[in-house]
C-alpha cells in the first residue's frame, strides 16, 4: 500500500473571498479618500493657515508624517493582504491511494517440542517475505494443547518482524530445553495429557480472523507434525471443514518426521488441500520456501476503496504576511509614540 500522501497543489477553499475582500478594502479606501476631502462636522474654521505651510518646521513635520504615513499604509495594506489570503483559506489537497491488498495471514505454529526446529525455519522464511508485504496483515498463534495468540493480525510490520525474530530466537537457538523456549511457549499446555492438538490449533487459528464482513483473502500457514497426544475438541478434518466454511485457505507444512506416520501425513494433507491450500512436507522439497512462495502468490482480493483525500489548511503564508504587516504597524506606532512623547516632554519643560 502506498502510505505516502501525494500533495496536490495549494488552492483557496473560498476563492470568492479574495475579490470580495479586495473590493471591500478598495471601497473603504475610496470612501475614506472621499470623506477625507470633506471638512468634518463640528470643526472650527481657521483662516490664513497657509502661513503655516511656509514654515521650515512645518515642512520637516510634514516630511516626517509622510514617511510615517507611507510606512503605516504599507504595513496596513500588507496586513490586509495577509488577512485576505488567510480568509481565502489556502488549502492543500492530499490524496492517498488505497490499493492495499487485503490478505490476512495467520501463522499457526505447533509449539510442541518436536516442532521447534521446523517452527524456527518457517519463521525465518516467513520473516523474509514480511519485508515485501504491503497492506497484508500478519498474525502469529502458537498452539499445543491450547492456542495462544502471540500477536493478532496487524500490518505494523516493524512490530511483526520484531516479534518474528523473537519467536525464531525462542524456537531456534536454545532448543527445546532452554528457558527461552519454555517461557515463550508457556501456557500452550494446560493439561500434559493433551498436547499438539492440530485440530484444535487450526480451529483456534480460524477463529483469530476478524473483520468477517470484509472481503479479504484469509490464509493460515499451519506448521505441525500431526502427532496429537490426548483427545482434542476438534479433529483435523473437522477443523479443516470449519476453515473451509470460513473461507480460509490453509497451507500446511508438515515436519519431516511426519513422513514416518503416513496415515497422519495423509490426514494432514487431505485436510489442508481440502481448503484449497498447498501442503508441503518439510525436508521433502528442501525448505518451507515453497509454501511461503505459494502464500506470496495467493491472490490478494483488492478492495475497491476510494482514494483517501485529506485537505490540510496551509495558513503559514497568510499568517506570515499578516504577522509582518502587524509587526510593521506596531513598530511604526511605537516610533510615532516615541516621537510624540519626546515632543510632549520638550513641551513640558519650557
Amino acid at each position: 500500500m502506498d502510505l505516502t500522501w501525494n500533495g496536490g497543489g495549494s488552492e483557496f477553499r473560498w476563492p470568492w473571498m479574495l475579490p470580495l475582500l479586495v473590493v471591500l478594502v478598495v471601497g473603504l479606501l475610496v470612501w475614506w479618500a472621499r470623506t477625507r476631502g470633506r471638512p468634518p462636522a463640528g470643526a472650527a474654521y481657521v483662516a490664513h493657515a497657509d502661513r503655516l505651510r511656509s514654515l521650515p518646521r512645518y515642512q520637516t513635520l510634514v516630511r516626517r508624517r509622510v514617511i510615517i504615513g507611507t510606512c503605516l499604509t504599507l504595513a496596513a495594506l500588507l496586513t490586509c493582504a495577509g488577512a485576505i489570503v488567510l480568509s481565502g483559506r489556502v488549502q492543500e489537497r492530499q490524496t492517498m491511494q488505497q490499493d492495499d491488498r487485503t490478505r490476512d495471514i495467520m501463522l499457526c505454529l505447533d509449539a510442541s517440542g518436536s516442532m521447534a526446529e521446523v517452527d524456527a525455519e518457517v519463521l525465518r522464511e516467513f520473516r523474509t517475505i514480511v519485508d515485501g508485504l504491503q497492506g497484508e496483515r500478519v498474525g502469529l498463534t502458537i498452539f499445543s494443547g491450547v492456542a495462544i495468540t502471540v500477536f493478532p493480525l496487524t500490518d505494523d510490520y516493524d512490530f511483526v518482524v520484531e516479534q518474528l525474530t523473537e519467536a525464531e530466537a525462542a524456537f531456534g537457538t536454545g532448543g527445546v530445553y532452554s528457558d527461552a523456549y519454555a517461557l515463550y511457549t508457556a501456557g500452550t499446555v494446560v493439561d500434559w495429557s493433551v498436547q499438539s492438538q492440530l485440530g484444535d490449533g487450526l480451529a483456534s487459528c480460524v477463529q483469530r480472523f476478524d473483520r468477517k464482513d470484509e472481503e479479504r483473502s484469509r490464509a493460515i500457514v499451519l506448521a505441525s507434525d500431526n502427532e496429537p497426544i490426548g483427545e482434542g475438541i476438534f479433529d483435523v478434518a473437522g477443523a479443516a471443514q470449519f476453515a473451509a466454511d470460513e473461507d480460509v485457505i490453509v497451507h500446511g507444512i508438515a515436519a519431516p518426521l511426519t513422513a514416518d506416520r503416513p496415515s497422519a501425513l495423509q490426514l494432514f494433507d487431505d485436510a489442508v488441500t481440502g481448503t484449497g491450500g498447498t501442503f508441503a512436507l518439510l525436508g521433502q522439497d528442501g525448505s518451507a520456501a515453497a509454501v511461503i512462495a505459494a502464500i506470496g502468490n495467493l491472490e490478494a482480493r483488492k478492495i475497491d476503496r476510494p482514494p483517501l483525500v485529506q485537505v490540510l489548511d496551509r495558513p503559514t503564508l497568510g499568517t506570515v504576511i499578516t504577522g509582518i504587516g502587524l509587526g510593521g504597524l506596531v513598530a511604526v506606532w511605537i516610533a510615532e509614540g516615541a516621537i510624540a512623547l519626546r515632543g510632549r516632554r520638550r513641551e513640558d519643560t519650557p
Partner: protein
Amino acid sequence: MTAHLTRIKSRLSVHAHRKVRGLLDGEYAAIHVGRGIDFNDLREYVRGDDVKDIDWKASARSRQLLIKRYVAERKHTVLLCVSTGRSMAAMNDAAVSKRDLAVFVSGVMGYLAVQHGDLVGLAHGDATRQSARPPEGNELHLERLLGIVHDAIAPDGPPSDLTALLRYVARTVRRRTILVVVSDETTLPEASVDILRRLTAQHEVLFLTIGDLDPTLPAVADRRLVDVDAGAEVPGWLRHDRELRDQYAALVTSQEQQLRRRLEQLGVVHERVRDTESAISAVYRLLERHRHARRR
C-alpha cells in the same frame, strides 16, 4: 434677526460701569475736525474730550469740569468698510469667531456714531462681490447693517479681498467719511497701499484688524480645525510641536509689525482687535491715537 445692537449696547453698558462709555463718547466726539460753533449744552468732562472745549466758568460754578457741546455743523458719515470674505468666518480664538468680532467692533463704531447723530453706512465685500448701503442715522438701520455683515460672512463664501473692497469704496464713495476698515488681512499688498493712500486723502481712515486662531496652540488640540481657504483639515499633530509654535508666533508677530509699520507710513491709525473683552478698549485706543495723529 439676531439683535446685534442689543448685545453691543449691553456690553457697552457693562463698560459704562467701568467709566469707559463716556470715555468713548469723548474720544469719538474729538475725531471730528470741523465741529459746529452753535452752542448746544454742557456736559461733564470725560477723559478724551478736548481741553479747548472746557467751559471754565461753568466748571467753576458747578465745581465739576464741564465742557461745551456744540451742535455739529453737519452730520458726519461713518462708513463701515468690512471685508466679508470666507476668512472672516474662521475663529478668532478658541471661543469667538472672527465674524462675531467684526460685527461687534463695527457695531461699537456705528453705535457711537448713531449716538452722536451721525450717519452710518456700510461697504462690504469679498473677492467677487462688493456692495454698499447708503448711510442713515438710526439704530434700526445700524442693526440692519450689522445683520448684513453677519449674513455676508460664510465659510463657503468667496475668499477675502480687501484690495477689491477698498477699490470699490474709492470708486463709489464720493462724500467725505470716517472710513472704518474692519479686515483680517495679515499683509498689505502694494495695490492696497496705493488705494489706502488715495483714500486717506479723502477720508479719515481708521483701520481695525482682527487676528486669527493660532492652529498650533495645544489649547485647541481637542478640536478639529479646517482651513477655511483650502477647505482641508489642519492636521491635529501640528498642535503638539513647540518649535512650530515658536516659528509660527514669530511669523505672526513679524507680519503684524510689518502691517503696523506700513499703516503708520500711510498715516492710518491701526488697532488690532484680539477679543470681545478688549475690543472696546481697542476702539478707544484707536480713536485716541487718531485724535493725537490729527493734532500732530
